[in-house]
């Protein structure tokens, strides 16, 4: 007891000292450092973050994100969960290490949301002529807010990957099921009962893609009937945990580790 009290007092003193140093740093009158640096950094980083997040989603899970009829219960929750968590995880590391901001995933997903809508509107809708309600992109912003909240509460990247990865898969699916649900209503088309999304897929010609039924309905997972969705979400959550650590490797070793390091020339 006698030794515990002084050490606690020393720790409190050190903490107070650290707070004072940070306050001094914050209130210091700088000659060259001003708010323009912050503005330029946060705005210009939007482009590279949006580009990295979008290319990762486009080329890992793009087909399942482009069309309403590809947003199926079997593959969509699995590939999308993995592809969309990678760059948010990298930015979580960067922003947490640099500023202690638990905002990296939200920042990334807002950037991705803007880039996705620019791409879908100008390229898929205006240039190619597909109706926007056939080619709308998903939003990962709500799931990202939860992922950042988990990091803020746990202050642990391991726990964020374990809980956050699982939650990510469920939340990405759940929040995007709301806009998707109207397209899953039954419709009678040429004497067959299909979904509205199926009808869109048949009416709007995609002459270079594999036909819908052969690709999407392949596999024995259909034998699980109504459980298919939950099995996919569970597996999607597992893959999202893996994707989270892929993102951590990008943030730690490709973005932060190289700072001030050089390849020596002899």
């Amino acid at each position: 007891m006698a030794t515990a009290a002084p050490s606690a007092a020393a720790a409190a003193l050190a903490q107070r000292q650290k707070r004072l140093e940070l306050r001094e740093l914050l209130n210091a009158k700088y000659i060259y450092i001003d708010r323009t640096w912050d503005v330029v950094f946060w705005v210009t980083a939007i482009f590279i973050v949006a580009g990295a997040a979008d290319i990762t989603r486009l080329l890992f899970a793009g087909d399942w994100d482009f069309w309403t009829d590809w947003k199926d219960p079997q593959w969509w929750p699995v590939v999308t969960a993995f592809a969309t968590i990678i760059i948010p995880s990298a930015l979580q590391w960067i922003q947490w290490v640099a500023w202690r901001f638990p905002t990296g995933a939200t920042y990334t997903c807002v950037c991705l949301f803007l880039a996705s809508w620019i791409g879908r509107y100008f390229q898929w809708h205006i240039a190619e002529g597909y109706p926007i309600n056939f080619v709308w992109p998903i939003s990962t912003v709500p799931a990202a807010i939860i992922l950042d909240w988990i990091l803020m509460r746990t202050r642990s990247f391991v726990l964020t990957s374990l809980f956050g990865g699982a939650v990510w898969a469920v939340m990405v699916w759940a929040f995007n099921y709301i806009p998707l649900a109207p397209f899953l209503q039954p419709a009678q088309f040429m004497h067959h009962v299909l979904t509205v999304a199926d009808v869109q897929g048949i009416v709007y010609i995609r002459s270079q893609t594999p036909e819908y039924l052969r690709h999407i309905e392949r596999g024995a997972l259909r034998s699980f009937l109504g459980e298919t969705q939950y099995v996919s979400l569970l597996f999607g959550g597992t893959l999202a945990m893996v994707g989270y650590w892929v993102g951590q490797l990008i943030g730690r070793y490709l973005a932060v580790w190289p700072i001030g390091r050089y390849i020596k020339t002899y």
Partner: protein
Amino acid sequence: MDSRTAGVAQGAPTDWLDGWKTLFWGCAALLICNVFLWVWDYNFAFTAGLNSASRDFTLHYRTLFWGELLTVGIFAGVWYGWLVRTGRALAGETISSREEVRRIVVLWGIIGATSLSLYIEASFWPNWDGAWHQTMVRDTALTPTHIPMFYFFFPLSVVLALGAYLYGRFRIPAVYGADKGFPWSFFLLIAAAVLEFVQVAFNEWGHSLWLSEEFFSVPFHWPFVAYGWLAGGMFAVWGETILRLYGIEKEARGAAEVPTQTAAAGGR
């Protein structure tokens, strides 16, 4: 001291209309190019871009292809020549804190333009490329969506990333001087841009060999993603120049008087 240098000396290096003009002009030029190419494709992709054996295709797209490569090549030659020639003249000169800060501002301007170029090549055009190839028959590597994306913005990102390094190499020696070695940050950023460009060859080879059906998430597209991740090195460029800014602040406070800026050092 010319009028441009005098202007720099009067205002703060981070004035929006002065210090950051490299960023604004760079981004404006990129956006103008992008709007031009988008409008070009919007007007001619469906009317002249479907049959690569046609005269219309040659007129509208092969000429555009060569025009883009020539433009990027000439821009790179002129810019790099200027950077190296003037950079060598600056070697060994003492630079003031203000001037070094101004140069970091310019570097951030080039990096910001590179960031925009990478977004255009990694998100804006791939969206149209996906829509195009899932709808239209591919009969050439020079499809209307490839020409702006692969043969303009891909090489342009390489040129901008390498140009940013050359700028730092000669003008910000405290961070990127030759004596320090080659920075990992720029190694990764330049590698991302270069590998994305060379991946085009594998991509076209793959399309000619394996698939007639267009999956956008096909495995031979994945290297585009992995190479793109290397662009994380851009954050390291921002990080190490921020650290240098704090160093300059510290030095400037410690020094009784900031070294006088030489006329030759200003405005480059």
